[in-house]
C-alpha cells in the first residue's frame, strides 16, 4: 500500500516535471521578449496556437514530411514575429506599457478568431512519427511525445542560456535589456536586437506549437497553454531565464499533484486552478519572483 502511494506520487512528479519543462519552453519566449524589449506579450499562447495550425496545415498535405511542417512553423513564426515587432510594436515605443499590453491582447483575440474563419473550428491532428511506445522510468510512465518535449525543451533552454551568458550577441542583448539608451551609445543597434528577441520568441513558440499541438490536437484551445505562462513567469521572475525553467517545473509539478490528489474529490479542474493560486500567493510575498530582478524606478 505504502509502495503504491509512493510510486503514484513519483509518477505524478515525473509527469509534472516533463509537462513543466514544456511550459518553460513557451515561457522562455515570453521572458526573452520582456527582457530585451520590456514588452509584455499577452498573445504568447496564440503564437503557440498559430504555429500549431501552420504545422498541422503543412503536415496534412499529402506526402509532406513532418520535418517540412516543423520548418514551416518555425519560418512562419519568425516572420510573423518580425512583422509584429515592426508594424505593431515599434510605433508604440516610448508609449505607456499598457499600450503594448492592450495591443498584444487585441492581437491574441484576432489570432484566436482566425482559424474558425479560415480552416474551420474542428480539431486537427498533428502526429509526430515517434511511435506509441511509452517511456518507463521506474513506476512512472511517460507518453513518447512528452519525452520528445523534454528533450527539445532542454536542448533549447540550454542553447538560450549559452547564448545569453557566452555569446557576444547574447551579452549585447543583455545590455539592451539593461539600458537601451546606453546600449545605443555603445554603438549597438537596439532595434535589431528587438527584432532578434522577437524572432527567438517565434522559434520557441513554433516548437511549443508543434509539441503541444501533437499532444493535445490543434484547435483554438491550444492558445490556453499560453495562459500557463503567467504563473510560470510570475513564479520565476519576468526577466529570468533560469526563473522560466524553475517556474515551469514548479507549475508542472503543482498542477500534476493537484490533479492527482484533489481531482477525485472535487471532480476535476484543479489542474487549471492550482497554478494561479500559487501565482497570487507569490505576488503577495515575492512580487519579483524567485529569480526576477528587483527594479527600482528612479524618478
Amino acid at each position: 500500500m505504502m509502495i503504491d502511494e509512493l510510486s503514484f506520487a513519483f509518477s505524478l512528479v515525473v509527469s509534472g516535471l516533463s509537462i513543466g519543462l514544456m511550459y518553460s519552453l513557451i515561457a522562455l519566449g515570453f521572458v526573452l521578449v520582456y527582457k530585451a524589449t520590456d514588452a509584455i506579450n499577452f498573445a504568447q499562447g496564440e503564437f503557440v496556437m498559430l504555429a500549431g495550425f501552420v504545422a498541422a496545415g503543412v503536415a496534412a498535405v499529402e506526402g509532406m514530411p513532418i520535418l517540412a511542417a516543423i520548418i514551416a512553423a518555425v519560418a512562419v513564426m519568425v516572420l510573423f514575429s518580425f512583422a509584429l515587432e515592426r508594424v505593431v510594436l515599434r510605433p508604440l515605443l516610448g508609449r505607456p506599457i499598457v499600450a503594448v499590453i492592450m495591443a498584444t491582447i487585441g492581437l491574441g483575440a484576432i489570432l484566436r478568431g482566425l482559424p474558425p474563419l479560415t480552416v474551420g473550428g474542428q480539431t486537427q491532428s498533428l502526429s509526430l512519427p515517434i511511435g506509441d511506445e511509452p517511456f518507463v522510468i521506474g513506476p512512472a510512465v511517460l507518453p513518447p511525445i512528452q519525452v520528445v518535449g523534454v528533450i527539445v525543451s532542454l536542448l533549447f533552454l540550454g542553447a538560450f542560456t549559452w547564448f545569453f551568458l557566452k555569446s557576444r550577441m547574447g551579452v549585447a542583448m543583455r545590455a539592451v535589456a539593461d539600458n537601451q539608451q546606453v546600449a545605443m551609445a555603445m554603438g549597438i543597434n537596439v532595434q535589431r536586437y528587438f527584432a532578434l528577441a522577437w524572432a527567438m520568441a517565434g522559434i520557441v513558440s513554433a516548437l511549443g506549437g508543434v509539441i503541444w499541438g501533437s499532444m493535445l490536437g490543434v484547435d483554438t484551445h491550444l492558445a490556453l497553454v499560453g495562459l500557463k505562462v503567467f504563473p510560470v513567469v510570475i513564479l520565476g521572475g519576468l526577466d529570468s531565464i533560469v526563473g522560466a525553467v524553475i517556474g515551469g517545473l514548479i507549475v508542472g509539478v503543482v498542477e500534476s499533484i493537484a490533479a492527482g490528489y484533489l481531482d477525485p474529490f472535487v471532480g476535476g479542474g484543479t489542474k487549471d486552478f492550482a497554478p494561479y493560486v500559487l501565482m497570487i500567493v507569490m505576488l503577495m510575498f515575492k512580487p519579483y519572483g524567485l529569480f526576477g530582478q528587483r527594479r527600482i524606478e528612479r524618478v
Partner: protein
Amino acid sequence: MAPGCPQRSLLRRLHVTRARRMTAVTSPARVAATASPVSDPAQPLPHQETKVQLSIDRVSKRFGGVTAVEDVSIDVPHGGILSIIGPNGAGKTSLLNMISGFYTPDNGRITLEGRDITRRRPHQVAALGIARTFQNIALFSGLTVLDNLMLGRHVRMRSGVLRSVIYWGLAQREEIAHREVCEELIDFLKLQDLRKQPTGALAYGLRKRVELGRALALEPRIILLDEPMGGMNQDEKEDMARYILDVNQERGITVVLIEHDMGVVMDISDRVIVLDRGRKIAEGSPAEVQRSPAVIAAYLGAKKGKQSP
C-alpha cells in the same frame, strides 16, 4: 565658487601637467601626431586638412515651449580638451545628446570631420567614432567589468550570427584581438583585480572609471564626458583628471568635457565654452573665460568678479 583648499591642492598637483601640455599643444610635431587617425585604423575617414574635427553649427533644440539650446555654434579642434560649462539647465547635456544622436536638432548642422551626422542615430554616431559617458553612471550592472568593456568593442566586431557560426575560428581570433584591447584598457585604468566583478558591486569612483574604459573601448576619435567627476571626492577627482589628460595626450583622443568642478575645468581644458539658458555666452582659453564679464555676471557671480584681476 571661490576655489577652496582642496581645489588648490589639485591645481598644484596638476600644474606640471598643464605646463607640459601648454607647450606640447602648440608645437607643430604634436599637432601632426594627433591629427593622424591613430585611434581607429579599422575605419579610416577621409582625412580633413582643417583642424576642426567636430563642428556644431547654429544648433537649436526646443522641448515644447522650452528652449534647451538656442543657436549654439562650437568648433571642436583636433586633439584638445574642450570643456562646456554653465549653470544647471544651461543646455549642456542637451547639446551632448544632440551630438551623440539621442536628440535631433530642430535647426543647425553637426559635422564630424566634414561628414554630416545631424540626423544619425546613436549607434551610428558611436560607430563613426564618438563615444560618451553619462551623467548618472550607466554601466550594465549585471555584467562584469570585462563584459562592459567588451560591449564597447561591439561596433568594431563584425556582426552576424551566421558569420560567427560559419567562421568559428575567425570569430574566435577576433574575440581574442578584442579581448587584448580591453585588457590594455584594464591595465591603463588599473582595474586588473576587478575584471570579473559585476559592476553593480563596485565603489562609485571605480564605476565612473569603468564607464570611461567602456567608452574608450570603442576606440573613439572624440570622447564626450558628461560630468565624469560628479559626486566624487577629491582623490577620485584627481585620478579622473589624470586619466582624462592621459586619454587626450597619450591616446590622442579629442575630449569634450562637461564638468562643474571649476578647478578641474580651468586646469585641464584648452578651450572653454560657457552656456547659459541655452545660449553660448563666452568662449576662449580658461583665462579668457574667467575674465569675461558676461561669464562673471551670469555664472561665477559677483563675488568671484571682485577677486579676479
